[in-house]
C-alpha cells in the first residue's frame, strides 16, 4: 500500500496537508449544524477519495478520508459523510467489482446518491470489530440482520438502532448473515422496500442524524446479495474499525477546535485587570487540554495509518484511538465550557454543540470501556 511506503510518504503527507487546509477553509464558512452542501463536498473531491479513478474517484486511501472526518469534527459539521462515505463507500470497497457496486461507487463520488451502510447498533457496546482471535460474538453482533431463503429470492429480518445518516439514504447497504450463523454479506436494498422501515431517531446533538432500521421479511432480489471479496468476518470487523476510527478523527478535530477557541478566549477575556489566561489555574487547564489533544493525535494517526495500509494489528490501534480520543475530547470540550465561564454555557456560544457531539461520539461505535475490553482480551 502506498501509504505505508517510505518513498512516497512525504508526498502523500503534503497532499494531505493541502487537503486539510482546503477543507478547513471551506468548512469554516459553514456554521455548525447547518445542512452540508453536498454538491460542494462532491466538487471538492471529498466524496470519491477512496473511489477508483475510472469510477470518477481519486484513488486515494482511508488516510485522506480521515483528514476530512477530522475537519468535519473541527467544524461540528452536519451531513451524511460518516454513513455514506466512510461506511457506505467503505463497504462497497470490500466487495468484488460488479455493475451494481460500480454504479453506487460512481454515484457516491459524484454526490448523486447516498448509499448508507447499516452496521451494528451504533450505541451498542457490541459494536466493536472482532479481534485477531478468540473473541466470540462480536461479528455476530456486528451483523444484526439475517437473510432467509424464499422461493423468489431472499427475505431480510432484523433491526439496527442509531444507524448514522440512514434517514436520508437512497440505498441501504445492510450487513447481514445468511441464516442463523452464516458468513456476513452486504445486502443492497432500497430504503422504501416493503417490509423495511427507517424511523428517524432525533438526538440532542443536532449536528447528527440517526435512524432505526427495521427489516421484517423485506424482499431482497437474488442479485442484491453481495459477498465480500476476502474473508467476510475480517471484512465486517474492518468496517467496524473504520467506523470507530472515523469517529475518533471527528473527536480529535472537535477537541482541537475547543482548545483553539479556549486559548483565544483566555488571551483576551480580562478579570482582576489581566487576561484570565495569565492565571495558573486557567493556564494549567489549557496545558492539560493540549497534552490530551497531542496524545489523541498520535493514537489517531497510528490507527489511520494501520487501517489505510491494512496492517494486521489495525484493530488494536483502532480500539486505542477510539477509547482515548473520544474520552479526551469530552474532557477537552467540558473544560472549554468551564473556562469560557457564563458565556460558555449559553446556547449562542455554540460550545454546547461540541460538548454534545463529543458525548455522542464517545458512545458511538463502541464505548471506551468496550474498546478497552477488546484490548484486555489479549492479556490473558
Amino acid at each position: 500500500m502506498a501509504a505505508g511506503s517510505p518513498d512516497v510518504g512525504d508526498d502523500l503527507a503534503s497532499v494531505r496537508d493541502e487537503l486539510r487546509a482546503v477543507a478547513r477553509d471551506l468548512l469554516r464558512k459553514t456554521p455548525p449544524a447547518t445542512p452540508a452542501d453536498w454538491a460542494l463536498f462532491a466538487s471538492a473531491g471529498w466524496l470519491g477519495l477512496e473511489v477508483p479513478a475510472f469510477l470518477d474517484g481519486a484513488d486515494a486511501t482511508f488516510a485522506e478520508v480521515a483528514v476530512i472526518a477530522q475537519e468535519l469534527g473541527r467544524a461540528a459539521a452536519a451531513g451524511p459523510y460518516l454513513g455514506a462515505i466512510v461506511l457506505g463507500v467503505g463497504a462497497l470497497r470490500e466487495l468484488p467489482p460488479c455493475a451494481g457496486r460500480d454504479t453506487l461507487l460512481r454515484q457516491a463520488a459524484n454526490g448523486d446518491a447516498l448509499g448508507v451502510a447499516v452496521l451494528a447498533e451504533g450505541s451498542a457496546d457490541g459494536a466493536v470489530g472482532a479481534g485477531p482471535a478468540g473473541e466470540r460474538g462480536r461479528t455476530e453482533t456486528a451483523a444484526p440482520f439475517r437473510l432467509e431463503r424464499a422461493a423468489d429470492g431472499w427475505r431480510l429480518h432484523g433491526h439496527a438502532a442509531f444507524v448514522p445518516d440512514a434517514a436520508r439514504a437512497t440505498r441501504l447497504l445492510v450487513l447481514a448473515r445468511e441464516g442463523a450463523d452464516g458468513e456476513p454479506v452486504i445486502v443492497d436494498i432500497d430504503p422504501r422496500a416493503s417490509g423495511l422501515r427507517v424511523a428517524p431517531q432525533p438526538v440532542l446533538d443536532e449536528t447528527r442524524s440517526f435512524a432505526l432500521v427495521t427489516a421484517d421479511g423485506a424482499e431482497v432480489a437474488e442479485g442484491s446479495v453481495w459477498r465480500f471479496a476476502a474473508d467476510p468476518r475480517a471484512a465486517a470487523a474492518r468496517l467496524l474499525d473504520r467506523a470507530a476510527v472515523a469517529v475518533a478523527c471527528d473527536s480529535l478535530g472537535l477537541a482541537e477546535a475547543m482548545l483553539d477557541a479556549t486559548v483565544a478566549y483566555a488571551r483576551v477575556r480580562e478579570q482582576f485587570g489581566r487576561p484570565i489566561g495569565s492565571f495558573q489555574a486557567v493556564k494549567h487547564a489549557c496545558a492539560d487540554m493540549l497534552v490530551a489533544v497531542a496524545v489523541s493525535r498520535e493514537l489517531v494517526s497510528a490507527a489511520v495509518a494501520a487501517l489505510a495500509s491494512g496492517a494486521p494489528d489495525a484493530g488494536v490501534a483502532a480500539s486505542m484511538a477510539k477509547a482515548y480520543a473520544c474520552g479526551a475530547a469530552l474532557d477537552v470540550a467540558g473544560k472549554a465550557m468551564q473556562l469560557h465561564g457564563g458565556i460558555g454555557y449559553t446556547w449562542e456560544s455554540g460550545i454546547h454543540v461540541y460538548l454534545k457531539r463529543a458525548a455522542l461520539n464517545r458512545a458511538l461505535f463502541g464505548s471506551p470501556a468496550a474498546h478497552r475490553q477488546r484490548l484486555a482480551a489479549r492479556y490473558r
Partner: protein
Amino acid sequence: MTSAGVDTDEFRAAVRSWCRSSVPADWRSAQAGVPEAEYVAFQKWWFAELRSAGYAVPHWPARWGGGMSLAEQVVLYSELAAHDAPRLVLAFVAIHHAAATLLAAGTDEQRARHLPAILQGEIWVQGFSEPEAGSDLASLRTTAVRDGDRYIVNGQKLWASGATHADWCLLLARTSPDAPKRRGISYFLLDMRSPGLDVRPIKNAVGESHFCEIFLQDVAIPAGCLVGEENAGWQVAQATLGAERGLTMLELAERLGNAGFRWLVASCARLGVLGSPLVADRLAEFETEIAGLRALCRGLVERHEAGRAGPAEASMVKLYYSELLQRLMDFGTQIEGLPGMEVLRKPASSGWESGAWMLDFIGSWEWTIPGGTSEIQRTIIAERGLGLPREPA
C-alpha cells in the same frame, strides 16, 4: 519511521542475540542491598559492556561513537527493556545532558577532551538547583568571579544526583550580579576533584542517598571550562536541556512499555486479578496511554532532528511521562496491597522498574519533581506552546 523494515528486523535480531548472551540473568538478586561501591562497579561494568557492543551512546553523532537512526534507537531501547537489562543510572547525565551541552555549545577542545572520556566511563553530575533556586532556577546565587585565567566559585548546589561518584559537574553560576537575573548566569564544566568542594549525600523518600548537596568554597575553574559566552549560560542551558528533556524520554518510554506494563500484567496474573473487568479496564487504559506516549516521544525526536520541534514539546512529553508513570505505579501498589509494603529494599541499578510497586510508587515523585516540576512544565506548555500571557511579575 524512516528506516526500511528489513534493516530494522536484522538489527533487532542482532540486539536480541546480544541481550541474550550479555544481560546477566540474576543481576537483580545480585544487586539487592549491595554496598554503594559494588553498585558503582556494576554500573561501570555494564556501561563498558554496552560500549563494546556499540550500544552505549546510540543517540550521539557517528563521529563520536553513535550515529544510530531513530528507528534503530527505538529498537535498541525496546529490546534492552524487554530483556530486562540494567539501566544506565550513573552515566545518565554524562551521556545525555553533558554530551548535548558539549555538542551544541562546547568548543572543539572541550568536545575532544570530554566526549571520548564519557565513552570511557567519565561520570557527570548536574549542578543547577540551589536551596533558594528550585523552580525559579534563574534566581540562583552561586557566584563565579573572574580572576585572570580562571573563575573563583562560591555557593551551594542542591539535588545533584550521583555527585558522590561524579568526575565532572555541569555548573551554573552567576557571573554578573547586577544584570537581569537570566542575563548574568554562566555555564561551566567543573572538575569534581577541585579543592574547595564538599559533597554531602541527602537521603531521599525511598531511603536511598543518590542525590547530594555540593558546597563550593573558593573553587577555581579554568577559563577554558566556560561553555558559550560569559553571561550566556542561561541560554545555553535552555537550548540544550529543553530538548534533552524530551530525548531522554525515548528510552524511558520504551522501558515503560516493554518492562513497566509487562510487569504490571504479570503482577495482575500472579495475583489472580486479570479476569476482573475493573483491572482489565485499567490495564487497557495504561497500554493505550503508553502507546500514545511512545508515539509522542518518537515524534518529538523526529521533529527535533529535523529542527522542527515545537517550543513546548519536550515539556509535554516530560509531564505526560512522569504523571503516567506515577499512575501506573499507584495502580501496581493497589493491586499488590499490603504484601507490597513488605518489600523494604529494591535492587540497585533498577531505577523505577524494580517490580517493587510500593517503592517504585514512592520513587515516582523523582520524575514529577526534578527537571522542572509538573507545575512548571504546565506553565511552560501554556506560555510557550499555546502563547498564553505570562504571569505579571
